[in-house]
């Protein structure tokens, strides 16, 4: 028992020690506390995983939070196959990112503070994952959010960072508002917060309705939609996605850990965890799927034109999260978790790689001012390539397997599914394009930065590159646990592993269909690559050298590309630009308008309203008297 409790406890201890003694005693040695703690958690998580894989789920109540009459809430841990995988993902990536941070945050004024917050985050995330009831999950949910705001605004001297923290906070308020209500509604409906009890009794209330302002609403649908509200906020789905790109103001390890690999996937995890509820509500499922599909394509289009390297990756994260929700919405929970798991590695790798680049360029994030970094930073370059191959879904890299699984499941899921599959495939094309664009702008071509920067260009130290290489292994190989059955009998190990918790998705297609889906996604991945290649690499030496070696092929390709380019210059690009204007406009004016507008409106309202408080006795008396009169008037005369 202690073993499992220690998993979240170790990071928490690290937080306590660092925050209490960091300022005066530990200072720059904070990692000596934090890294062993998180490594310990990782090892224990592995051991827990093995226990679970051995067929033993752990579900224990740690203590009774409330015992009072009919009001009973116990709190404890549930480690089943789903949370075991999450534990591995969270702790392994945390370990690597902690090590990376030693190098990356070296010399920062608040070194100990950084590790303290990061440890607190890991603790909260582990609580969120390991909870066996909604209450503890809610606690973890709020706590990861708070850590996230603090870490986004970590460099609070920068106004943009402080603003971004505030924005993340504001946007997440909208989502958490729904989530909190959902949790309360669950408790009232089931009289319990325990997952097992709630899920066990969910079937019994399937048809029940609740009267909301005169409308009869299906109870389960309402609960699911409220919970999903929280997921939309936390996992940055349309329309609450606006905070995530801004969150990149935080230090890069934070972006990698919190805003790519772990916290933002909490929404996906939560929906997967609540699958017995969601399964009962078709409306909720379709909502999830549509929001996911729309987000996938929407964020991808925005990523096309970003110039800030971290923002590209951030939009890419939003888009990939969209895929996960798409999968959840079509009932392919294990595919979503599979993608969550592979995505964690390659996206963390992309972020950390970009961090390495930014570090080398002394905090330059604009890709227009990069270029040609390949020869200065070979390790970073190659891990970037591997991560990109993975995210774009090139066969045999991990992203291929998980993305393909999602698209295949979507394809099988009726008419809506077909449509979503189309959206997903289109988004895959865009993904390939912007991912390679990022590579070409950053690593290829001539260096476009200042001369001074060029002189200081260097590969990052081993403390940074080693975690990158380890993550690269994950980015390449993580997907091999989910090989589609058509390639290998029992290849989909992760799907089968998760089946007891998440169920195995129904729907069988023919092999031909499956090959078609797979072929389509490979085709778009390659097509996106080629377009990016043409647009951003054509004029450099590399293609010319290649061209000289393979003259005839090159000619043919070149001509084709020429057409392609013409096409893209005349039609694609203007269309793209225009649509991006619209989409970006939608983003900046409408969504941001709402997200910032409501707080601003309330703020303005507040400043107006406080004028009522004139400070004059007789005015106060007048308001009291009028208040009493209105009560009398309304409730006695108008009754």
């Amino acid at each position, binding site marked *: 028992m202690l073993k499992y409790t220690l998993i979240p406890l170790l990071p928490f201890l690290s937080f306590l020690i660092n925050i209490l003694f960091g300022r005066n005693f530990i200072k720059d040695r904070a990692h000596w506390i934090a890294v062993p703690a998180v490594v310990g958690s990782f090892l224990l998580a592995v051991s827990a995983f093995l226990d679970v894989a051995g067929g033993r789920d752990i579900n224990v109540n740690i203590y009774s939070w409330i015992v009072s009459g009919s009001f009973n809430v116990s709190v404890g841990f549930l480690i089943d196959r789903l949370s075991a995988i999450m534990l591995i993902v969270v702790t392994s990536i945390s370990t690597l990112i902690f090590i990376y941070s030693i190098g990356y945050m070296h010399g920062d004024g608040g070194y100990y503070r950084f590790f303290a917050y990061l440890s607190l985050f890991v603790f909260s995330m582990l609580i969120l994952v390991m909870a066996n009831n909604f209450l503890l999950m809610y606690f973890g949910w709020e706590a990861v959010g708070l850590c996230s705001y603090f870490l986004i605004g970590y460099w609070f001297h920068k106004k943009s960072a402080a603003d971004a923290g505030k924005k993340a906070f504001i946007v997440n308020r909208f989502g958490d508002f729904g989530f909190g209500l959902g949790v309360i509604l669950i408790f009232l409906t089931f009289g319990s917060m325990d997952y097992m009890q709630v899920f066990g009794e969910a079937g019994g209330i399937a048809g029940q309705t609740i009267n909301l302002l005169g409308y009869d609403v299906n109870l389960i649908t309402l609960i699911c939609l409220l919970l999903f509200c929280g997921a939309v906020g936390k996992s940055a789905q349309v329309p609450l996605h606006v905070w995530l790109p801004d969150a990149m103001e935080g230090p890069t390890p934070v972006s990698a850990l919190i805003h790519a690999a772990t916290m933002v996937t909490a929404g996906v995890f939560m929906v997967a965890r609540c699958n017995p509820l969601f399964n009962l509500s078709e409306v909720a499922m379709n909502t999830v799927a549509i929001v996911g599909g729309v987000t996938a394509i929407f964020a991808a289009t925005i990523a096309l034109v970003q110039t800030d390297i971290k923002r590209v990756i951030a939009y890419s994260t939003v888009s990939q999260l969209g895929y996960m929700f798409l999968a959840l919405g079509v009932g392919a929970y294990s595919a979503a978790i599979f993608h969550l798991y592979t995505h964690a590695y390659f996206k963390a790798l992309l972020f950390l790689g970009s961090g390495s680049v930014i570090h080398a360029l002394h905090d330059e994030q604009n890709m227009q001012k990069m270029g040609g970094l390949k020869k200065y930073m070979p390790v970073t370059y190659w891990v970037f390539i591997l991560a990109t191959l993975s995210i774009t879904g090139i066969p045999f890299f991990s992203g291929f397997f998980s993305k393909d699984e999602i698209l295949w499941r979507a394809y099988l899921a009726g008419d809506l599914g077909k449509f979503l599959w189309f959206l997903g495939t289109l988004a895959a094309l865009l993904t390939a394009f912007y991912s390679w664009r990022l590579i070409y702008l950053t690593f290829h071509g001539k260096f476009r930065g200042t001369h001074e920067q060029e002189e200081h260009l260097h590969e990052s130290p081993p403390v940074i590159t080693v975690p990158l290489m380890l993550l690269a292994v994950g980015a390449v190989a993580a997907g091999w646990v989910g090989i589609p059955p058509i390639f290998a009998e029992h290849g989909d190990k992760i799907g089968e592993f998760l089946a007891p918790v998440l169920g195995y998705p129904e729907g069988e297609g023919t092999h031909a269909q499956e090959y078609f889906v797979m072929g389509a996604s490979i085709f778009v991945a390659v097509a996106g690559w080629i377009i990016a290649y043409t647009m951003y690499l054509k004029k450099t030496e590399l293609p010319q050298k290649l061209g000289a070696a393979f003259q005839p092929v090159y000619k043919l390709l070149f001509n084709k590309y020429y057409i392609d380019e013409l096409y893209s210059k005349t039609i694609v690009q203007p269309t793209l630009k225009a649509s991006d204007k619209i989409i970006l406009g939608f983003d900046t004016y409408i969504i941001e308008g709402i997200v910032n507008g409501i707080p601003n409106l309330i703020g303005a309202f507040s400043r107006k309203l406080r004028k009522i408080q004139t400070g004059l006795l*007789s005015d106060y008396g*007048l308001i009291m*008297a*009028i208040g009493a*009169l209105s009560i*009398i*008037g309304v409730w*006695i*005369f108008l009754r």
Partner: protein
Amino acid sequence: MTAPQLFFAYFAVMITVLSLLMITRRNPVHGVLWMLVLFVHIAGLYIFLNAEFLAAIQIIVYAGAILVLFLFVIMLLNLKKEETVKKFQKHWLVGVGTGIIFAVFSVSIVRKIEVFPQLGKYTIEAVKAEGNIMTVGKVLYTKYLLPFEIASVILLVAIIGAVVLAKKRIE
């Protein structure tokens, strides 16, 4: 109209008029004096309602103590300027309107009041037989002992409060 009704009408009119006079005087001293007359009329009404003890208290405490305190403070503050400045607030019409609506509302609600629950045993004859003060005293010191004691603590607090707030303290 019967005699008692005429009698009541006199008091009612006087009380209303005196109240209005009181709240409209520019000089607070005049206000206090009108209030004194008003309190005498209210005491008259109490006698009319067979509450002789309260009538006495009304004169002794209200007129004798409270109003004198008011006068004393007015003199202490020495408000000469008060004669020249506006006596009503800027938005006085709103206040008056609110008050009138208040009056209309409450009068229109309470004017139908005549619900009588089970009557008590203190009929006029019973009280007369024992004397009003005796009756009040008996009830006050038995059934209402607790409120009586609380009232004494309130008066104690008033003494302490007045001393704390208004006395000169040697620092």
